[in-house]
């Protein structure tokens, strides 16, 4: 039963990637939590599967997972749909919700600091454990509630982010500030994510290769909560530091891995994240042709 529910998301990912064989080589950042200012290429669809294994003091460890569909609507607008779930060992596997996010690039040209506006709506249960961001006073102890109880708590949340990202001498530096609001009567909560990454080589090789250093991007990200409207600050918040590594294969696949470490007593001691994604080029045109009836 546990495996079946978890496999649904994996199957969605696999089916989607197998059905659309036209791929393009991706140049993805390796981050799991932080966002940079690069949006999806227009008309391309990226299908991603991510997992997080987390340790839980005072309870059972968990494995959360999500499938993400990221589509480049235009060169200045990217939309994403997430489906997520989790398995708590010794408890159960459950579907925990969906999220719909949009990123907008307000400036036409590249600048030293490039802003991106992010708007998200999330419908999830209290059992959600994907830890895709640090916000408010979220701490490790919040995830101790058994799934059967936690899933009864339904949350509709809006989240806004300001993403400021720079590229300098091959390095990407990004800083995300977030404000989230549970649409019930809850205060605004705040959080942050920082990231830095760089390809292992800046020049491309003149030979076709999979293991060339330019296909690997390494970096580090740090994220956590900043309290809420009434208690802003670092008190009773959790924070993580995570090295990240991404491998962009010429076949269009990207593999990512990141061991994360809690930086204070409120954080999970260890999070291991990994992910696989595939970029499908010309998805928008394919769908357009389907409905226009042209060959």
């Amino acid at each position, binding site marked *: 039963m546990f495996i079946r529910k978890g496999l649904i998301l994996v199957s969605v990912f696999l089916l989607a990637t197998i059905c659309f064989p036209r791929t*393009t*080589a991706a*140049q993805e*950042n390796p981050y799991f939590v932080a966002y*940079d*200012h*690069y*949006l999806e*290429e*227009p*008309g391309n669809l990226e299908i991603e599967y991510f997992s997080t294994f987390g340790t839980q003091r005072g309870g059972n460890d968990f494995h959360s997972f999500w499938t993400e569909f990221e589509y*480049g609507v*235009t*060169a*200045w607008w990217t939309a994403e749909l997430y489906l997520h779930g989790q398995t708590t060992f010794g408890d159960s596997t459950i579907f925990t919700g969906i999220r719909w996010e949009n990123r907008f*690039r307000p400036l*036409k*040209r*590249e600048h030293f600091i490039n802003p991106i506006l992010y708007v998200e709506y999330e419908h999830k249960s209290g059992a959600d454990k994907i830890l895709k961001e640090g916000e408010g006073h979220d701490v490790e102890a919040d995830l101790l509630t058994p799934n059967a109880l936690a899933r009864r708590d339904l949350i509709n949340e809006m989240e806004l982010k300001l993403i400021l990202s720079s*590229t300098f*001498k*091959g390095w*990407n530096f990004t800083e995300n500030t977030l404000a989230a609001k549970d649409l019930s009567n809850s205060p605004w909560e705040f959080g942050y994510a920082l990231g830095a990454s760089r*390809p292992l080589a*800046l*020049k*491309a*090789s*003149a*030979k*076709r290769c999979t293991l060339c250093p*330019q296909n690997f991007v390494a970096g580090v990200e740090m994220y956590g909560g900043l309290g809420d409207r009434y208690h802003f600050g670092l008190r009773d918040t959790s924070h993580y530091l995570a090295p990240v590594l991404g491998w962009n294969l*010429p076949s269009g696949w990207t593999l990512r891995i990141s061991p994360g470490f809690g930086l204070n007593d409120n954080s999970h001691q260890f999070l291991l994240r990994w992910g696989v994604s595939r970029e499908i*080029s*010309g998805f*928008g*045109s394919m769908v*357009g042709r389907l409905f226009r009836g042209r060959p």
Partner: protein
Amino acid sequence: MKIRAVGLCLATLLICTCFPSAIEAQQTGSSTSKQKAKESVYSEIGKAPEKARAQHNPLEKDPDAVAAGQILFEQRCAECHGDTAEGRKKGPSLRAAEIQTAEPGAIFWVLTNGVVRKGMPVWSKLPAPQRWQLVSFIQSLGAAPPKPETSPTSSAQPPAAKGAFLPRR
């Protein structure tokens, strides 16, 4: 009767005089609109600031730059600009004289900044040396031979006029 004959002669004269000039005007108008579309497609190159234009390709003498640029082009650019860079619906030809005779710095600037409002993404996600490798490859292609002129009544449009950097959805 006489008046009718004179009227008919005048009408014939008018038609004979005006029709060829109308066709000529149509031809001129068509080529003007083509020219305008082409200009608008490549106008981004002209927007590159002087400082960007003045930049020299640091990989100009790198023997591997073109080969590496070709691989990058196939992976990142061919989807929109075509395998031979002669343009597709989504992206214009990169073998047009406007690109081939442009300063390398101007092409690098367009790659870096994209043409976001018209559908071309920002490519600064590629490190600068890779963008220069792309510039080397693009300018190594040379101008494509001119395509035969199509009749003015044909609905076919040149690649430049059709797509520009616009994704057609």
